C-alpha cells in the first residue's frame, strides 16, 4: 500500500471540521435516499403490525428467521467499534487515533438497530415493556433464568457503556466546537460539553475514565455476544447445543465488526476527502486483522462441522446435510467463499492487499456473515427432531424490506452523526501530530 501523507497540525481542525460546516449536494442525495429506504422499512413494519405476523414467511416450525438473523448480525457488527477501539487503546496502538470514533459510532448505531429486531419480531411490539422488571398488573415478574432476558440485560449494559465510551472523547471536541459555532449548533455543543475547560484535572480524569472504560467494555463486549450465542446453545436443538458457540459467535462478531469498519472507513475516506487522515496503513492493519479473524472463523467452523459429522448423530446430521449439500448448500458455499476464500486470497497475498481489495473483501465478509447467521438460525428450526414436523422457510417482501431498511437506517444515522460531530477525534489527532507520530 502507498506511503503515509504528512499533515500540518494547523490544518487538522480545518480539514476535520469542514464536513460539519459545508453541505454538498451528494450528502443531501444520500440523506434523502437513506431516509426513503428507512421510511419504506417503517411502512412495511407498520403493515406487519396492522396485519399480524402472518405477512411474514414464518411458519411452523421455523419461527425465528430473518429478524433473529438480522438481530444476531447487527449485534455482531456492534463489535466493530467499542471492542476494537478498546483493544487498540489498551495496547497503545498509535495508528488507532483516526479510526476509533468512526468505529465507536458503528457500535452505538448497530446496537440500536440490533436491539430493535426482537421488538420487530414480537407479534405485539407494544407490549415489549413486559420484558422490563416491574410488577405488572398480573403480578408476574420477568423470568431472569431465561437467556432471552440475559440478552436484554447484556445489550442494555453494552449500549450504555458504548454510548459513554463514544461520548467521553467527544467532550473536548464539542467544547471547542461550541466556541466556534453559533445558533443551534452552539447550543447543542455547549450542552454536550458539560462546561469542559481543558484543564489538566479534566484531561487526567478523561484519560483515566477512557482507560477504565476500555477495560470494562472488553469484558462486556465479549459477554454480549456470548450471551447471544447462548440464546441458541442453551436449547437442546441440533447443531445449536454446542460448547464452542460462545467463542464462535464472539469470533464471528469481531470478524464482521472489522469488515463493517473497513467498509465505513472506505466510504468516509472517499466522500469526506480524508485521504490524508485515513491512510493506507490503517486499511493495511485492519486488513491483516480481517485475515486473522477469517482464519479463526474458518478454524471454529471446521471444528464445529467436523465434530458433528464425526459424531454422526441422526438429528445433527439432518441439519448438517441440509446446510452442506441440501437446500441451503448454495448459501453455505457462498458463505465459505465470502468469509474465507475472498479475504484469504485478496488480503493474504501482500501484493494484492490494497484499499480497494480490503473494501471488497470486507463487503464480502458482511454478506458471508449475514448468511452464516441465517444458516445457524433457520436450518436447525426447519429440521426438528421429529422428521414429520420438518418444514421450510422463505422470506416475504415484508421481512426483506424491514431488514434491508435497517442498512439504510445505519447509513442515515451515520450521515447525521458525521454532520454533527467530527468523524475523527480532533484533539486526539492534534496530539498525535504534535508528538511527531504522523
Amino acid at each position: 500500500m502507498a506511503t503515509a501523507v504528512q499533515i500540518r497540525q494547523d490544518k487538522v481542525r480545518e480539514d476535520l471540521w469542514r464536513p460539519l460546516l459545508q453541505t454538498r449536494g451528494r450528502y443531501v442525495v444520500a440523506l434523502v435516499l437513506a431516509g426513503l429506504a428507512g421510511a419504506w422499512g417503517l411502512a412495511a413494519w407498520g403493515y406487519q403490525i396492522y396485519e399480524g405476523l402472518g405477512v411474514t414467511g414464518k411458519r411452523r416450525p421455523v419461527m425465528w428467521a430473518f429478524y433473529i438473523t438480522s438481530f444476531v448480525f447487527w449485534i455482531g457488527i456492534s463489535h466493530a467499534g467499542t471492542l476494537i477501539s478498546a483493544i487498540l487503546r489498551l495496547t497503545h496502538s498509535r495508528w488507532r487515533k483516526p479510526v476509533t470514533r468512526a468505529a465507536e459510532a458503528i457500535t452505538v448505531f448497530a446496537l440500536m438497530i440490533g436491539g430493535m429486531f426482537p421488538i420487530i419480531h414480537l407479534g405485539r411490539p407494544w407490549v415489549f415493556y413486559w420484558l422490563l422488571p416491574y410488577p405488572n398488573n398480573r403480578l408476574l415478574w420477568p423470568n431472569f433464568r431465561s437467556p432471552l432476558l440475559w440478552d436484554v440485560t447484556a445489550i442494555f449494559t453494552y449500549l450504555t457503556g458504548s454510548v459513554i465510551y463514544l461520548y467521553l472523547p467527544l467532550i473536548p471536541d464539542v467544547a471547542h466546537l461550541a466556541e466556534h459555532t453559533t445558533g443551534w449548533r452552539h447550543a447543542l455543543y455547549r450542552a454536550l460539553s458539560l462546561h469542559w475547560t481543558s484543564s489538566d484535572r479534566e484531561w487526567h480524569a478523561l484519560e483515566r475514565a477512557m482507560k477504565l472504560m476500555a477495560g470494562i467494555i472488553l469484558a462486556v463486549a465479549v459477554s454480549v455476544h456470548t450471551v447471544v450465542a447462548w440464546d441458541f446453545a442453551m436449547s437442546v436443538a441440533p447443531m445449536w447445543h454446542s460448547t464452542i458457540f460462545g467463542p464462535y459467535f464472539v469470533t464471528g462478531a469481531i470478524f464482521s465488526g472489522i469488515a463493517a469498519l473497513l467498509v465505513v472507513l472506505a466510504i468516509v475516506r472517499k466522500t469526506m476527502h480524508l485521504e490524508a487522515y485515513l491512510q493506507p496503513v490503517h486499511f493495511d492493519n485492519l486488513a491483516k486483522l480481517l485475515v486473522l479473524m477469517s482464519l479463526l472463523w474458518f478454524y471454529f467452523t471446521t471444528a464445529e462441522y467436523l465434530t458433528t459429522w464425526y459424531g454422526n448423530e441422526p438429528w445433527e446430521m439432518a441439519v448438517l446435510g441440509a446446510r452442506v449439500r441440501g437446500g441451503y448448500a448454495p448459501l453455505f458455499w457462498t458463505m465459505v467463499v465470502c468469509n474465507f476464500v475472498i479475504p484469504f486470497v485478496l488480503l493474504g497475498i501482500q501484493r494484492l492487499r490494497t484499499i480497494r481489495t480490503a473494501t471488497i473483501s470486507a463487503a464480502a465478509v458482511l454478506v458471508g456473515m449475514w448468511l452464516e447467521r441465517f444458516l445457524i438460525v433457520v436450518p436447525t428450526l426447519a429440521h426438528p427432531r421429529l422428521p414429520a414436523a420438518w418444514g421450510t422457510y422463505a422470506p416475504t417482501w415484508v421481512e426483506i424490506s424491514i431488514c434491508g431498511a435497517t442498512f439504510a437506517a445505519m447509513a442515515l444515522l451515520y450521515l447525521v452523526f458525521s454532520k454533527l460531530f467530527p468523524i475523527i477525534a480532533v484533539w486526539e489527532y492534534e496530539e498525535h501530530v504534535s508528538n511527531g507520530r504522523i
Partner: protein
Amino acid sequence: MFLTGEFSQAEATGRAIEALKAKGFGPQALDMFSTEPVELPPGVLDRPSRMSLMAVAGAVVVCLLAVVFVYYTQRSYRLNTGGMPLFSLWATGVIFYEMAVLGAIGATFVMFLWESGMLRKDHAAPRWKGAEGELALEPGRILLRVRCEPEHFAAVGECLYAAGASRVEKVQNKS
C-alpha cells in the same frame, strides 16, 4: 483571585509548578489549561484518583442490588421450576455479571464528572476565544493558573516569568 502564566513548552510549565510548590502552593491551587493533554514528569502535578476503586465499588453495589432484586422477584411470584431451586445463582449469574459491569460503568462516569470538576462551573477558566488582549486557549499554548491572594501576586509572577512564561495576567473569579 488568580494569576495566569502563558507557556509554550511543557518543560517550562513543569519548572514553574515545581517552583510554586516550593513556595507553598499545592496542586489544589494550580490548574493547567491546554488544547491537548500535556504530559509532565511523574510527581510534578499528580492528581490522585479514586476512579478505579469507585468503579469496583459501583460494580459490587449494583451486583448486590441485582441479587437482592432477583431473589425477591423469584419469591414474589413463584414459577413452577419442576423441583429445582426457586433462586439459582447459576441460572441468573449472567444477569448479575451484566449488572456488575453496569455498576462499574456508571460509577466510572460519575467519578469522571466529579474528579474532572466539570460539575462545578469554573468561571475563571480561560476561553478558546478571549476578549481583545486576554489570555486564551490556543493550540501549542499552556496556561498555568495559580489561585493566590493579591499580596502574593508579585512573588508568583516572578516565579512564572523565571520559569519561562511569556506573559502573566490577573484573572478575577466572576462567580
